[in-house]
């Protein structure tokens, strides 16, 4: 009996590596600690009613952001481990298998479980406030999306300690990712982790399109929307066209592995190239999905801190939409070297270059927003200004890569690695950081410490260039991606050391940010009013943090940058119309179903990974039961009475 248990445990848990053992112990300890703290302070009920069941977009946004910061930590540790391994030739710090797992999880986590949730977090917090709405279109679905993401991410991460991590690369090309190449469970964790969270992303895409198109405050026509809202719209449109492809692709890979089908296998007439096409039909739009909102954030910030209207609004809108459209016609540039023939390569090279045009136009528009402005440089603006040169250079190397015949020399090399890190860190991460610093007071009612933020900023920036500029050079020296070791005579070591140093500088930068948050919480200083940056858009017209219902009265929008214009009119002493009387506010009720249903998804996924039908079937039935339970629930909303709104407003705004 005991032997059987032992045997099972050694299959179930990943064993044998001190590094992993250490992680397992620390994870177990932190779980115990969390449970203890929650029990000791009697916080379980609070956690359940205030957070786990919340359908409030602001709270969901905060949960997204917390999860993404945790994932940034894990993905970052992965990155540093890789950099350590590459710091010297023939190093035996990580074994090949372990290294392969780490670069796989690094890629998946950073794109799908760090960038995506950080993006969704900002969507959630900002979009309803910017358009003068009280929540998103489907608050219940929104909560479900979050928990699906969360449990999908957990399912993926659990493979680190249970069953084994995936190790076939972040896009898991078959036949390597088939049963023949990856017989372990890691690949199944990969499929189900991404699948479950991907469904959540799809739902978020739908949710925000409806929110933006149907819930804007009266008067806010499409062409008066803040640019961030436009960017969210373009990103969400891209999501609903791209994510179903991912769902199908992973599903087919799952059927291959689980039922022995032959979609992408070598034998039985399968076609691995089809997978590569399909995954990039999602994968390429995916990078635009994450970068477009960053463009929106920069547009807001650059205008706010130049104290000037955004230059070329219409151009910007057109650029966003055309990027979103063309992103679907460039996927084959990820495999120019697959022998598709000159005409196919030429076509995809041209479409790729085409995207550079609207992107370039955006840069000019940001520059000319600053031109003849009054620039101030608090942290959000610093990130924005740092973004421009970084993204311009990254964009340029992107254009170089799009030159198909030249790509035969760049492909799969560190040149490519440097390029996409430059646009993803310099574009996406810098953008979301800028957004986080900008909207942090709106989320929590206090500012982050500027001094520490500047330290973090400089470490991030210097670290970034020190880390990735050498990688361009390494690519030209013939160093290919995903190698876990290299020979002494290649001459790759000096630049690799430099790059590793850069990686650790960014690690230090992250620590500064954590310190910054901790410090700012400890020395909590509430912002004086809801408009601490002298902002331009509606979210700054309400208190920070925003009350549950956001707007006591739905604003009547007259122009682009409406709040700025309102302030101008006030300063000019123009009479304002008397405020409309308050009315009861219609709000969605909290619900535990999203959380429970996502737990069921987790159980289903976990059961399928292990091929335990006794576990998968109850999980599946649980999902169905939750769906039905929701369908039969009619009591989904309530009204906040006028006197309560009055009381809240009086407390938040003082005498006003």
């Amino acid at each position: 009996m005991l032997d059987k248990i032992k045997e099972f445990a050694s299959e179930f848990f990943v064993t044998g590596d001190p590094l992993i053992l250490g992680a397992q112990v620390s994870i177990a300890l932190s779980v115990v600690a969390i449970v203890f703290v929650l029990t000791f302070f009697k916080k379980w009920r609070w956690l359940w009613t205030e957070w786990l069941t919340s359908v409030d977009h602001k709270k969901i946004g905060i949960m997204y952001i917390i999860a993404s910061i945790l994932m940034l930590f894990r993905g970052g540790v992965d990155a540093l481990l890789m950099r350590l391994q590459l710091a010297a030739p023939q190093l035996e710090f990580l074994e090949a298998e372990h290294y392969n797992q780490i670069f796989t999880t690094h890629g998946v986590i950073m794109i799908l479980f760090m960038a995506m949730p950080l993006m969704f977090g900002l969507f959630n917090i900002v979009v309803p406030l910017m358009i003068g709405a009280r929540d998103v279109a489907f608050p219940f679905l929104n909560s479900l999306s979050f928990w699906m993401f969360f449990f999908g991410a957990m399912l993926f991460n659990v493979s680190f300690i249970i069953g084994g991590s995936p190790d076939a690369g972040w896009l898991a090309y078959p036949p390597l990712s088939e049963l023949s190449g990856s017989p372990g469970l890691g690949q199944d964790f990969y499929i189900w982790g991404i699948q479950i969270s991907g469904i959540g992303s799809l739902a978020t895409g739908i949710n925000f399109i409806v929110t933006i198109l149907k819930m804007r405050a009266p008067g806010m026509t499409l062409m008066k929307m803040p640019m961030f809202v436009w960017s969210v719209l373009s990103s969400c449109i891209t999501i609903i066209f791209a994510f179903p492809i991912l769902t199908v692709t992973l599903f087919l890979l799952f059927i291959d592995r689980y039922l022995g089908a032959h979609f992408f296998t070598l034998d039985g007439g399968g076609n691995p190239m089809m997978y590569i096409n399909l995954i990039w039909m999602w994968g390429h739009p995916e990078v635009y999905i994450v970068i477009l909102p960053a463009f929106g954030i920069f547009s807001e910030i650059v205008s706010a801190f130049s104290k000037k209207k955004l230059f070329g609004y219409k151009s910007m809108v057109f650029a966003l939409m055309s990027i979103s459209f063309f992103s679907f016609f460039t996927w084959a540039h990820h495999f120019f070297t697959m022998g598709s023939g000159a005409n196919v390569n030429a076509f995809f090279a041209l479409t790729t270059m085409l995207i550079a045009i609207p992107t370039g136009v955006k840069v000019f528009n940001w520059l000319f927003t600053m031109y003849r402005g009054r620039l101030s440089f608090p942290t959000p603006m610093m990130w924005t200004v740092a973004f421009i040169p970084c993204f311009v250079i990254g964009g340029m190397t992107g254009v170089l890569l799009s030159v198909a015949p030249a790509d035969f020399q760049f492909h799969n090399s560190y040149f490519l690695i440097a390029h996409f890190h430059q646009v993803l860190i310099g574009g996406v991460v810098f953008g979301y950081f800028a957004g986080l610093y900008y909207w942090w007071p709106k989320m929590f009612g206090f500012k982050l410490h500027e001094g520490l933020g500047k330290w973090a900023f400089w470490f991030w920036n210097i670290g970034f260039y020190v880390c990735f500029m050498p990688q361009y050079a390494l690519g030209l020296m013939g160093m290919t991606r995903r190698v876990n070791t290299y020979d002494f005579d290649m001459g790759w070591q000096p630049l690799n050391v430099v790059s590793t140093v850069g990686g650790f500088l960014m690690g230090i930068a992250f620590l500064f940010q954590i310190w910054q948050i901790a410090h700012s919480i400890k020395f909590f200083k509430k912002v004086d009013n809801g408009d601490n940056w002298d902002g331009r858009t509606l979210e700054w017209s309400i208190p920070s943090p925003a009350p549950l219902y956001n707007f006591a009265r739905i604003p009547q929008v007259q122009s682009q940058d409406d709040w700025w214009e309102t302030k101008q009119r006030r300063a000019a002493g123009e009479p304002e119309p008397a405020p409309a009387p308050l009315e009861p506010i219609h709000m969605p009720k909290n619900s535990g179903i999203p959380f429970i249903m996502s737990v069921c998804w987790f159980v289903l996924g976990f059961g399928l990974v292990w091929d335990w039908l006794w576990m998968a079937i109850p999980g599946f039935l649980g999902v169905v039961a939750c769906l039905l339970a929701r369908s039969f629930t009619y009591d989904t909303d309530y009204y906040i009475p006028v006197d309560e709104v009055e009381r809240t407003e009086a407390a938040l705004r003082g005498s006003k």
Partner: protein
Amino acid sequence: MRPFIRMLTPVLLLLMAVTLSGCGEQFIVLDPKGPIGESQKDLIYLSTILCAVIIVPVLILTAIIVWRYRDKKGSTAKYRPNWEHSTKLEIIWWGIPIVIIIALATVTVKYTHALEPSKPIASEKEAITIQVTSLDWKWLFKYPDENIATVNYVKIPEDVPVRFQLTSDTAMNSFWIPQLGGQLYSMSGMAMTLFLQADEQGSYFGSGANFNGKDFAQMTFTVDATTEQDYNAWVQEVKNSAPALTMEGFEKLTEPGTSDKQLFSSFPEGLFDKIVTQYVEEGSSGGHHHGAAESESDTGSATDAKNEAESDNADANQEHMNHEGH
């Protein structure tokens, strides 16, 4: 001031990165020794210059604007908070990228056709053929005309075009000799052609550029380009001294693992075609290959044991299904 410094950082670092390594021979992509690599290098430089035409002014403009319009006491810079549109300016910056991209696109299309990997290199000399197979985790090279084979080692005569035919035994890889020219995927179930040529004698680094599993990093090989006489002498020497590659020997090579350089005086006839067509009509040829592809590593950890059990299961399942199918 600070933004300005940061503006310069990327440029400085780029310069540093280049100068640090002496711009020398280590940049093998920029130091080609064959016509294909040479054209690709030209193209890289040309496209870089075209891009720089736009990028450098933008970077300078950024620095100037950020510096000039920063908010400070007594700033004399203009402030026009509502200036948000200028058709003239916007036409300019839609126009400039469009012009550059058209130029670049023209060049790209031309080169894409010229450098299509399967296009023979013009030469008076007849091309030699080398059949390349990526295995887990080594490269097998076969010289069908000379009837010799090598592992992780290639010798070619200088100034003679080489027709590489690429395939893979299992997962996809990518065959890359940076100093001769760009890479091409090696994929199982098909043979793709890549023409390369060395214009100079020398020893060149080659690698598998596409991740294909555990010991992917060990899939490097050396390409020696010599005079034709030396090449012919080497072929003779291999024929005389090296062992033959038998079918069993090949099966052994397909087992997962790394390898040093190996030479073979002959190889089974039609082996390359066999590798390419091994997955066709699986039903009739039987799944004998599975075992080789799936037998596992020697670390013997618990997960591996589990994996093995799993894959055995899967095999059984598959056979079961096939059986049902008949």
